[in-house]
């Protein structure tokens, strides 16, 4: 186990595990954390997992770990690793099973004052319009050909079918359509699993939440995003559902025999990988892009139904009930990007597993309205606590491959949470705090209790003090829909 004494302090918010820590490390680990958060992570295996990730061939710079880090499988959650493109490797386990799990934020011009009496009705309508829960599919039954289309086009498929606007596409990472998607690299099982699930939330830590924009820290950025203090906003957190899980499982399985062929030795077989210029690496990149596009379409279709839910309750009641997309970010993904490493511009594949892209001002990947302020970075808190809207900085580009944290990060296992917290008690507590909850199961609710997570405010304080992002607005939950 890595202990605090193994770490070299770079600053109050940055620490290093040097390459000398273990013989198979190709690069060091850089951890962004306050001293308090660091103590949390030395209790589980997250740092050991970060060290394991340092064995991947083709890594550049260092493996970064965000302050919301916690133990995962293969990579730690909160891990960012960049491998030189195309000769470096891509590792499906470094992206995760829920490919392009991500979050989007929609803003509104509905003031809390006008909307507060309708929150109960909105909760019921969202629950009715947006399918959620274990194994639950969406409103659409697609053919295999349709699923292939979703995988090729992502949010554009949603637009072609009346579920998206041009602005929605523009305000989604990569326009909601990752290049290079080729459904020929998907297994029949992956395609089959995609047939019923477009526009479905799923379960676990996925949610839809109505929030109050409680405090604005950066008026200029908030104005560009259409966020006003005292108005309602909506977050959607979900991913690529069964199709994405199947893609990752298929490729982690098929790459088991491939690593030896390329002479790659790994400390954990969940880290299996292939050079991006190999047939196996190219196949995974094409399949991953399909799953990523499926997830973009999924969140877009859910947004459409959330808009319908708002319309069904608020049309004729408030002047403007529309929800506009602020931004949609992926936090489990591999992206081909260009970054500056040791003074040179290098094309890399940035693996972000439980980390959010946080491009700074001036990035050409941003829509025109965000070029001056930087990319909106969405950091959902745990259920019942604040969420944050941040913006990417130039420093993030220089120090973390343009990445920031993705949430609060767990500290307590699900079984511990269930032992300590009863779903019914938690429900009552949240309702006493004025938060309306619609949950599929009490057990699921207890597992996601705020006490099982780190303090999101401290995580956000850390990334902002480390310079990886800047605060724009704080959101407070009003209604939570969980599968």
């Amino acid at each position, binding site marked *: 186990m890595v202990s605090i004494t193994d770490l070299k302090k770079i600053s109050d918010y940055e620490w290093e595990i040097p390459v000398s820590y273990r013989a198979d490390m190709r690069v060091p680990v850089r951890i962004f954390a306050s001293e308090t958060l660091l103590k949390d992570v030395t209790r589980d295996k997250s740092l050991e997992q970060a060290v394991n990730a340092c064995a991947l061939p083709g890594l550049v710079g260092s493996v970064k770990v965000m302050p919301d880090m916690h133990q995962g*499988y293969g990579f730690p959650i909160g891990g960012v690793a960049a491998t030189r493109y195309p000769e470096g490797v891509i590792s499906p386990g470094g992206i995760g099973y829920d490919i392009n799990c991500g979050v989007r934020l929609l803003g509104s011009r509905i003031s809390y004052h006008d909307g507060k009496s309708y929150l109960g009705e909105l909760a019921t309508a969202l629950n009715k319009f947006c399918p959620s829960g274990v*194994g639950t599919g969406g409103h659409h039954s697609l053919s295999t050909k349709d699923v292939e289309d979703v995988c090729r086009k992502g949010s554009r498929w949603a637009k072609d079918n009346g579920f998206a606007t041009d602005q929605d596409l523009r305000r989604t990472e990569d326009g909601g359509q990752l290049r290079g998607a080729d459904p020929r690299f998907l297994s029949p099982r992956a395609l089959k699993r995609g047939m019923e699930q477009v526009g479905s939330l799923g379960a676990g830590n996925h949610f839809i939440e109505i929030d109050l924009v409680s405090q604005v820290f950066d008026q200029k950025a908030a104005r560009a995003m259409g966020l006003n203090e005292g108005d309602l906003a909506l977050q959607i957190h979900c991913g690529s559902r069964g199709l994405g899980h199947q893609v990752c499982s298929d490729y*982690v399985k098929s790459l*088991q025999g491939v690593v030896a062929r390329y002479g790659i030795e790994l400390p*954990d*077989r*969940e880290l299996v990988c292939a050079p991006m210029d190999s047939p196996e690496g190219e196949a995974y990149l094409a399949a991953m892009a399909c799953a990523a596009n499926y997830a973009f379409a999924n969140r877009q279709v859910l947004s459409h139904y959330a808009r319908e839910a708002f319309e069904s309750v608020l049309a004729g009641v408030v002047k403007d009930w529309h929800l506009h997309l602020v931004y949609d970010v992926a936090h489990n993904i591999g992206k081909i990007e260009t970054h500056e490493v040791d003074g040179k511009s290098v094309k890399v594949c940035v693996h972000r597993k439980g980390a959010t892209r946080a491009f700074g001002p001036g990035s050409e990947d941003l829509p025109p309205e965000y070029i001056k302020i930087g990319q909106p970075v969405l950091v959902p808190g745990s259920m019942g606590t604040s969420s944050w809207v941040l913006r990417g900085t130039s420093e993030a580009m220089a120090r973390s491959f343009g990445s920031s944290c993705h949430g609060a990060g767990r500290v307590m296992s699900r079984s511990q949470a269930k032992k300590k917290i009863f779903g019914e008690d938690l429900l009552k507590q949240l309702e006493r705090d004025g938060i309306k909850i619609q949950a599929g*199961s009490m057990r*699921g609710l207890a597992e996601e209790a705020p006490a099982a997570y780190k303090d999101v405010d401290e995580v956000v304080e850390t990334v902002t003090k480390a310079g990886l992002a800047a605060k724009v607005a704080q959101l407070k939950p009003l209604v939570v829909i969980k599968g």
Partner: protein
Amino acid sequence: MNEKLAGFEEQSHTADLEIKVWGEDLTSLFLTAADGMFHLSGIEDYEEGFSAVKDTISLDAMDYEGLLILFLEELLYRLTEDYMLFSIEKLSINTDFSLKAKLKGTQIKSYQRDIKAVTYHRLNIRETSQGYEVNIVFDI
């Protein structure tokens, strides 16, 4: 099945689920791992009468660890996609890392928890004085 010689136990994992499984031989280890996975899925209520649907599984892998993951994935796929809970009527595991299983299944109405995947994380089947043991991490 003898409780002492085969069983599973949930381990602490910050975000996902991990079980330790033990069995007197590989067959018992694989069967107990399947029981453990179904337990984590939260299948509490199902109709008896496992003979209604029959199925077979035929798999091969590079090693026993890989074979175990494939076996669990097959059962998980049938559970999450077809809502079928299968009991294993006959399981034969061969030294060339292949297996054949005869299954009898029953339709379930629901399960409590989505398991996204069975991972290879730190996967290692260990020989013990009692037989075999393995830790398996499930992504949820």
